[in-house]
């Protein structure tokens, strides 16, 4: 008897309203009660809080890989945090932990102060590759998350069509992924990730597969698109300049096992033009990040 009464306090319903709203959405499909309670908790707790997360992967006949070692980080709503680190340092594992795809061995993740036991599906996640469904056109790829959430087709389409303007893909809504360039496909993938209005957005090296020119263009585009929102964004990259172009705060991760070795507040105005790379502050930041990365490589 006493056991059954305890369960509801630890189990969080999948569609808890407090995780479903953001400033992008002025007319949320869900009830207002959830929004209000979210607004109350918003100022007190960070959108994402990772505490002492450790994760290693067991391999047969080989020593286990320690991917992430005692990582703690907080991200507030409206903040853009970039994690920089060498390849294979466990950055993606950290994102997977935040997303709920992977549970840490020790430590925990909370969303707005609540334990994120069932956070999978409440955190928007954009992967390195676009993962668009080839049998769906751009519009129905973009609305996949809304469709899964049970939102009516007409509403989902309207919402996607509106946002597609800002994303620069409005002319391609009927096109199929195979006919699009890599940069366009990434835009669609981001639109799909942000449409369900999660408070947290994870970006796992979103421009990795793109050429340098498209990459620079999409970096500018991304800061344009996301500056108008108040979600918490965490991006992973191995590109120091990309981190400084986009981030409010940059965390440097060491090679495996991944630890956070430097936390840098980026005090640069927004929007950041391309020539900000010549700004002495930018150069200074860049040097700090590079030497933090170098330190780890030499030790």
């Amino acid at each position, binding site marked *: 008897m006493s056991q059954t009464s305890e369960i509801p306090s630890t189990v969080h319903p*999948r569609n808890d309203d407090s995780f479903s709203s953001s400033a992008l959405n002025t007319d949320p499909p869900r009830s207002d009660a959830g929004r209000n309670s979210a607004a109350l908790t918003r100022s007190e707790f960070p959108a994402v809080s990772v505490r002492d997360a450790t994760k290693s992967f067991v391999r047969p006949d080989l020593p286990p890989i320690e991917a992430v070692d005692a990582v703690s980080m907080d991200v507030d709503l409206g903040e853009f945090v970039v994690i920089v680190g060498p390849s294979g340092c466990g950055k993606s594992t950290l994102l*997977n932990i935040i*997303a*709920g*795809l992977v549970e840490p061995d020790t430590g925990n993740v909370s969303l707005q102060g609540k334990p994120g036991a069932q956070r*999978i*599906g*409440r*955190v*928007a*996640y954009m*992967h390195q*590759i*676009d*993962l*668009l*469904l*080839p*049998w769906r*056109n751009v*519009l129905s790829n973009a609305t*996949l*998350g809304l*469709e*899964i*959430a049970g939102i009516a087709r007409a509403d989902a389409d309207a919402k996607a*069509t*509106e946002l597609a*303007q*800002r994303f620069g893909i*409005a*002319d*391609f*809504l*009927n*096109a*199929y*992924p*195979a*006919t699009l360039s*890599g940069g366009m*496909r990434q835009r669609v993938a981001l639109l*799909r990730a942000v449409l*369900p209005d999660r408070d947290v957005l994870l970006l796992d090296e979103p421009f990795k*597969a*793109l050429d340098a020119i498209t990459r620079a263009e999409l970096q500018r585009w991304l800061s344009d698109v996301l500056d*108008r929102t108040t979600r918490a964004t965490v991006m992973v990259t191995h590109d120091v300049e990309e981190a400084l172009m986009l981030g409010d705060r940059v965390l440097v991760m060491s090679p495996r096992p991944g630890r956070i070795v430097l936390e840098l507040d980026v005090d640069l105005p927004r929007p950041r033009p391309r020539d900000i790379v010549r700004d002495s502050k930018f150069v200074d930041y860049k040097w700090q990040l590079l030497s933090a990365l170098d330190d780890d490589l030499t030790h």
Partner: protein
Amino acid sequence: MSSQQQIKELTTPVDASIPASSEHTFAIRARSFIRAWGSAMLLAALGLVLWEILVRVLDVQTWILPPVSLILAELADKPDLFLRHASVTAQEILIGFAVSMTFAGVMATAMFWSRLLERSVYPFLIASQTIPVFTLAPMLLIWIGTGIAPKIVVVVLFTFFPVTINLMTGLKSVDSDMVDMFRTLGASRWQMFTKLYIRSALPYLFAGLKVAAVVSVIGAVIGEWVSAASGLGWLIKTSTPKFQTELVFAAIFTLSVMAALMFIAIALLQSRILRNYPGSNAQGGES
């Protein structure tokens, strides 16, 4: 403010006239058809002509090997006969095919949801293919009689395997990154099944259906061989001892045409349904 305005201005209904995929005109289709099948058709024509010439030059008896012209004459002479028997066989094939597809769909779906079921049933699916169906067919006669049912069962025994195995392989070959993507969107297992797994498995399903289409004809003939009063298999069986060789060849020709038509129908359906799949490898990404 200006950006808000801009968004309002730009938010117009999507233009439906945007060309989604390249338009295939009839001429382009015809040309690609000739490119795909032209050489095979030419080879077939060459073989038939050679057959005709050799039979005539070497003066082969028609009851041993009739010339092509005689076989075609036989077909043209008795269209009713062939049509009647072909429709019986076609019925067995189509019903058997439908049963196989249903069976494959149910099996593969059940195995997707239950690993235990998969582990216990899969070995028997493989084992079932070691049974020589030809020896089983007379037993079917004893078990379920002489009607259409035993023929359908033989067709099913021939066709369920390629369809089921391919469908299962397709369901298992879904990209794990795609699964993760669906999970982060909050998809339930059922949503993943309907929106991801089935769609990803379709190219595999069609590959299985093509194999099944061809072997289904063999199944129907074997079914008719054991006991039947009509059908192309029965026609072949009863005409051979009577040395009506041209009739036998005409019936075989009809069977081949039926198998080819089945195959083509499935291929057309496939190219229609899978027209946006880039090959069988259905992933995006630049590499």
